[in-house]
């Protein structure tokens, strides 16, 4: 471990609120340990700003172990920074070098308006789920036994892989079209692969895609950026599956 730590120049997007215009501001931090997480480095900056009597940088974060999906940040031109398979809270400063300049921006999309500084509003994701991200059963506790319907392990595993989406929005942020296809397809796929979800599969995919479009996300052009930047490695296969589900649903629907 180097004794003194790193000195870094940070270029950070500052924006008072949704209405105001923002701009990039420059800050310097020093003594950054390579063992810090990226968010702990921002904690250091904020402590410094508070002690100087200025407003700290607002950013979203919560679990700090890579599962809640709350942290975002577009770091040096990539969602969740230069490491792969991690969220920003799992990104460590050893990925950077002493003297580096680091650009830190909010996830950019028309459907993700900036709330303040680096905080964006991702409620569009929730609204897409309201449109169909569920199986319509009540929590009676009198549903049939959990083992009544065997599910092939391969299907269960694929459904699980799709279900590991944490809803962080890195896919939208990375896509040149700000498309939410990977996010939506993960949920559509999870349910399409399970017998419990198949029953409503048609309505689900039609409704969720309609809501996705309404929110102002762009179109998918299969660049594959989303898959590369996804901290959970959600596969593009899910998008193909959603396309398939959507096609068959729109052809066979009766009204």
């Amino acid at each position, binding site marked *: 471990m180097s004794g003194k730590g790193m000195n870094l120049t940070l*270029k950070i*997007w500052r924006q008072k609120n949704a209405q105001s215009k923002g701009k990039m501001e420059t800050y310097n931090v020093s003594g950054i340990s390579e063992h810090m997480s990226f968010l702990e480095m921002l904690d250091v900056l904020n402590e410094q700003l508070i002690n100087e009597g200025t407003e700290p940088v607002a950013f979203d974060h919560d679990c700090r172990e890579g599962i809640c999906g709350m942290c975002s940040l577009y770091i040096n031109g990539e969602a969740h920074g230069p490491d792969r398979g991690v969220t920003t809270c799992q990104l460590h400063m050893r990925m950077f070098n002493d003297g580096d300049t680091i650009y830190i921006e909010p996830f950019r999309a028309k459907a993700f308006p900036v709330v303040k500084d680096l905080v964006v509003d991702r409620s569009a994701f929730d609204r897409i789920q309201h449109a169909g991200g569920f199986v319509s059963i009540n929590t009676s506790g009198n549903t049939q036994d959990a083992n009544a319907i065997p599910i092939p392990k391969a299907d269960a595993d694929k459904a699980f892989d799709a279900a590991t989406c944490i809803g962080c929005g890195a896919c939208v942020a990375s896509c040149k079209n700000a*498309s939410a296809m990977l996010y939506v397809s993960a949920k559509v796929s999870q349910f399409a692969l399970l017998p419990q979800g198949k029953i409503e599969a048609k309505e689900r995919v039609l409704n969720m895609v309609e809501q996705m479009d309404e929110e102002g996300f762009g179109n998918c052009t299969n*660049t594959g950026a989303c898959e590369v930047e996804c901290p959970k490695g959600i596969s593009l296969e899910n998008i193909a599956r959603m396309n*398939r589900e959507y096609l068959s649903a729109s052809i066979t629907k009766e009204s």
Partner: protein
Amino acid sequence: MKTSIARKVLMALSGLFLLLFLLQHFLINFLSVISPDSFNEVSHFMGTNPLIQFLMQPILIFGVVFHLGMGIYLERLNKKARNVKYAMNKPGTNSSWMSRNMIYTGLMVMAFLGLHFYDFWIPEITVKYVEGDMSGLLASGEFRYFHELQEKFHDPIRTGLYVVSFVFLMLHLLHGFQSAFQSVGFSHRKYTPIIKKLGNLYAIVIPLGFVFIAIFHYVSHL
């Protein structure tokens, strides 16, 4: 047509259709290298068969116009989906240049099509439907198709433009081929890698083949 996925599927279907057209176009052109006579015969058939002329040709033109129009329309929508740009962006780390620049490679191919129409299609239509000469023959009694083809590639600038255009087409197809399959929902852990390889093969071989034909005719004239 109203939703993003429907548009994307139509984009893919029109693209796949154009891929098929391109393949047959290439095969016919390639005849000009191995057998000028066969090339002439097939060209005459294609140029005079009413089914091809009055059914396939309009469909093809519609396909091209649709693919272009939808491409531009989608590009505009997609630009709007991110109203504030990143100050620092490194898309090269997660996606290929080809996949991100389909609109530009596509527009270049379209520009080339303008030249191509000017070179071949407009003269064809003029001869056949304005002048009414459906014979396909030169004054000498020979078929005119091979002769016209050779003549066009006498010009080194034109030949050069063709070569450059096919490079753009190659870039377009390197992403477009496999992307079309993904868009219509075809994805399989076993077959998708094969399709990707096939797509790369197609995207390289066909444009290079066209380049070869152009250079062949240019060189054979020297």
